[in-house]
């Protein structure tokens, strides 16, 4: 798949932990406290990040902050063109969303199309009083008028480059890597 890949680490494990700590504080500020806050992670690494944020916000045990999981596959706007149907992930939003402050959590913000789809999913579940967007990496390259409210780290990337977010619970270790020269 790849021809002479060049990999540069953008964030290491410590950077990620620090970024998440800061983002946790910003999330609480954004929501004006935790009373009405709901974290909704986008499958798959957004779910992991939402869990970590909740842990930080809850001061060790994240149980207090309601968390949902959301898969945007069924709301994608490119199903007709991408070939075989992608795997559909789990959506679990069992809490009431109406009049809550919902923070969408994802690993990378790029074109904005995933977030557009996530907004469509959320509106099928209820009418939150406010929806925010929190991402670990904003790599630019937007195709839709969507911006993140909370960003762990912003990097400028070119088309053809790839940002891999690796998380311990899924990938064995924490790192954010910029991959160049990858063959798509």
């Amino acid at each position, binding site marked *: 798949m790849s021809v002479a890949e060049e990999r540069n680490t953008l964030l290491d494990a410590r950077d990620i932990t620090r970024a998440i700590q800061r983002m946790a504080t910003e999330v609480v500020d954004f929501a004006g406290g935790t009373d009405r806050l709901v974290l909704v992670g986008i499958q798959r690494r957004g779910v992991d990040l939402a869990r970590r944020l909740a842990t930080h916000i809850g001061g060790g045990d994240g149980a207090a902050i309601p968390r949902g999981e959301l898969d*945007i596959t069924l709301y994608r706007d490119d199903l007709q063109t991408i070939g075989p149907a992608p795997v559909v992930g789990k959506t679990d939003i069992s809490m009431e969303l109406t009049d809550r402050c919902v923070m969408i959590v994802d690993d990378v913000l790029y074109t904005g199309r995933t977030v557009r789809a996530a907004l469509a999913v959320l509106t099928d579940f209820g009418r939150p009083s406010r929806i925010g967007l929190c991402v670990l990496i904003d790599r630019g390259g937007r195709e839709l008028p969507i911006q993140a409210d909370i960003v762990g780290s912003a990097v400028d990337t070119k088309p053809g480059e790839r940002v891999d977010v690796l998380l311990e619970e899924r990938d064995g270790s924490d790192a954010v890597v910029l991959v160049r020269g990858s063959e798509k």
Partner: protein
Amino acid sequence: MIRDASSPVPSLGKDLLGLEPLSTDQIQLILDTAEPFKEVSERAIKKVPTLRGKTIVNLFYEASTRTRIAFEFAEKRLSADTVNIAAAGSSVEKGESLVDTARNLEAMRIDMVVVRHPSSGAAAFLADRIASNVINAGDGWHEHPTQGLLDLLTIRDKFGRIDGLKVCICGDILHSRVARSNIWGLLKLGAAVAVCGPRSLLPRGIEELGVQVFGRPEEAIEWADVLNVLRLQLERMQGGYIPSLGEFYRVFGITQERLDRAPRDLLILHPGPMNRGVEIDSRVADGPHSVILQQVTNGIAVRMAVLYLLAGGTPERADVSKGEG
């Protein structure tokens, strides 16, 4: 249970004609894909935009309530546009051949056809002649793949697996497309499969498909973890395959008395509609081990999964790159 997106995704190809031609991986893919679709039907707004703009024709040459409704729900919950054509009152009834009907549909630029037909092989016939996706909703005595899939999903829900289970299909196997789809699906997923019924309702050479044959329900109950009790097609019994419905119930009916002597709790499936007091006792149908209503619920999820996967199109796997959105 959920496949990792980075693992290779098998494609279903253009059509779903039966479970016999599918690989184990393809069947697993459908069942795995059905899981997240269950949740859609639990939402307040039971609709996702996935198949927006797709046109699906439900072409039913045979009366059907439950299968047609389940397909229609599945299609509507995926936001497809649907048209129902029933044989009665349509050009089909006026003698238009299947191939002409197919060509006309094709000219209307439809995307998918869900077809039920009294002749075995009719779905394959249609699939060979039109570019649209074809889903077999039951062809003659041949296959009823979505029923087979929902039965598999229901069994997997209860046991967490299918591999190693013993499943006996009971009743009129000869005329049953549900039986054939169940046999293929169960065998491919590693279950041991048996059939039980009067020899006059078992097709010749059934053992060669790899199933065991029980002459008496008592033997089947002794052996099995799951009974899939087929509907006795009353309209097909005029051929003199059994002396009477009463006698069938007496010898082959799945009754509470017979189940009480089972060495373990049996899961009871029935594809419906039931003939209570013919193939199954009401106490069994409504009893704690019956999952007949769950089958109906799963029927929608499985059909959503099939529609979704077939709409995905080409066999090459798309490169769903990480961190793209």
